[in-house]
């Protein structure tokens, strides 16, 4: 398969996450070690944020009484560190790390860059937490596709955008009796033929800014990778690259040629 190169790829965020088998000597998760790891990376990730969540226990004391909140527990959730430009984010949670890459001005650094950084952070995490192994890796992409309004401005209000002109994924509803679609949200779980793992694709309209008369669609691609060989960085790299290729293939098949024109495909030859 020839790789599709895009001048303006729609991706705005991607992440690689790893879920771990904890070490047999694991102590209760309280964020202390995670904060130490975050501090050791402060030259690359100077902004740090501790994230907490609150859990309530609701109990009914006697039949007919109002339920009361008996216990409130603040639980340390994760540490989130990011670089100065907020384009690289590293999250350390209980037996889980996530490496996020956010699009800013300029070129998208690409999957290989994200993979390199994730494996580097995986090494750092492993040295601090000594997990027994990796249970699962996860690849996630977020795309924002902006469909411009019809060019004929004179009757622009009467013009409608046909979503299936742009997406192979979308099924239009018949105009009778439904009328026009004001917003859209749908989700597919497909089974990757290679490893029989689920790929979750969700597609939804999101609001454009008031000054733009356009349609914005958010696409999320989430692939769990439990069956790759986690024994070395090389095998992890290879496994994730295979999964990425599958997702890229699905991405290409999800759009019509008209939509791909929006992303300015480059001649790979």
């Amino acid at each position, binding site marked *: 398969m020839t790789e599709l190169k895009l001048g303006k790829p729609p991706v*705005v*965020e991607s*992440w690689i*996450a790893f879920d771990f088998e904890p070490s047999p000597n694991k102590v209760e998760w309280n964020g202390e070690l995670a904060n130490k790891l975050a501090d050791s990376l402060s030259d690359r990730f100077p902004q740090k944020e501790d*994230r907490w969540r609150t859990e309530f226990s609701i109990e009914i004391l006697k039949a007919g009484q109002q339920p009361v909140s008996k216990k409130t527990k603040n639980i340390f*959730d*994760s540490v*989130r560190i*990011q670089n100065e430009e*907020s*384009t690289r*984010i590293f*999250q350390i*949670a209980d037996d*889980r790390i*996530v490496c*996020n890459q*956010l*699009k*800013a*001005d300029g070129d998208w650094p690409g999957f290989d860059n994200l993979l390199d950084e994730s494996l580097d952070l995986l090494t750092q995490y492993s040295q601090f937490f000594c997990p027994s192994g990796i249970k699962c890796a996860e690849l*996630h992409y*977020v795309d*924002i596709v902006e469909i411009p309004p019809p060019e004929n401005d004179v009757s622009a209000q009467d013009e409608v955008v046909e979503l299936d002109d742009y997406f192979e994924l979308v099924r239009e509803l018949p105009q009778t009796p439904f009328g026009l679609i004001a917003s859209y949200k749908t*989700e*597919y*779980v*497909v*089974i990757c033929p290679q490893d*029989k*793992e*689920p790929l*979750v694709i969700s597609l939804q309209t*999101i*609001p*454009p*800014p*008031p000054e733009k008369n356009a349609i914005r669609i*958010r696409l*999320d691609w*989430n692939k*769990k990778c*439990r*069956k790759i060989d986690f024994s070395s960085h090389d095998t992890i790299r290879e496994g994730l690259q295979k999964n990425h290729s599958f997702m890229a293939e699905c991405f290409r098949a999800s759009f019509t040629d008209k939509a791909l024109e929006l992303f300015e495909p480059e001649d790979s030859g």
Partner: protein
Amino acid sequence: MTFVIALEYPCDVAHNIDYSPFNQRRRQCEVTDAMQTPITNISIGDTRYPMRQACVGTYFRALEELSVQGVSPHIVGKGKSAEEASNDFCLKVHATLQSLINKRPFEMTDEDQLKLDVISQFIDVTVYQNTTPIKVRQFGRIRRARPYPESVAWDDGRVEQVPIDKVEDSDYVTYRSGQPFEAVVQRDPITFELIRIVSIERRHESHRMPAEEESQLLDEIGSLKNLRQNTEWTP
């Protein structure tokens, strides 16, 4: 594409994979997504808005925009970081609400009403109005000071207890009985009970002109009757 019937979702026993979209780890995805920006409270200065529910915004670093489902595109936060965009969003909500909150329904355009409806989805505007003290300018005089002021008579004739600790200006303690003053007063929006006096200043005794002088002044001002007699204007 071939659909897998719901009852026959393949389940990989060895890896315990459930393909149902409902059982995928959605919360983990939401927590992991660095673009998700929760907005749990909106406070600007002393103003704190009661939230019906926390909103979750999505910050697009590439677009420098914070979009909140149900609120955007009417209100969109702008900024070079999620925090900056979140602050901008809160400021826009504050500015929009303050410009609308004192309008009577007949003064609102359709767009105003739409914005208020959108904001009311996540801010309880009625609770905000019912719990936000109103500020009024009032004139009065000290009614009793033994030895410190404790009771005032307002110019509408009402008498009210105003202890020292309800007045922010320390000079109030020196006011003597009969001292006229002008004050900015915070009151409960529902009961109109005094909450506190924000500022207070001494004023001179108001002067009423003698009856003869007052009558002369009214004659000089004239009346509609005189205007009709004197004018040469015809429609």
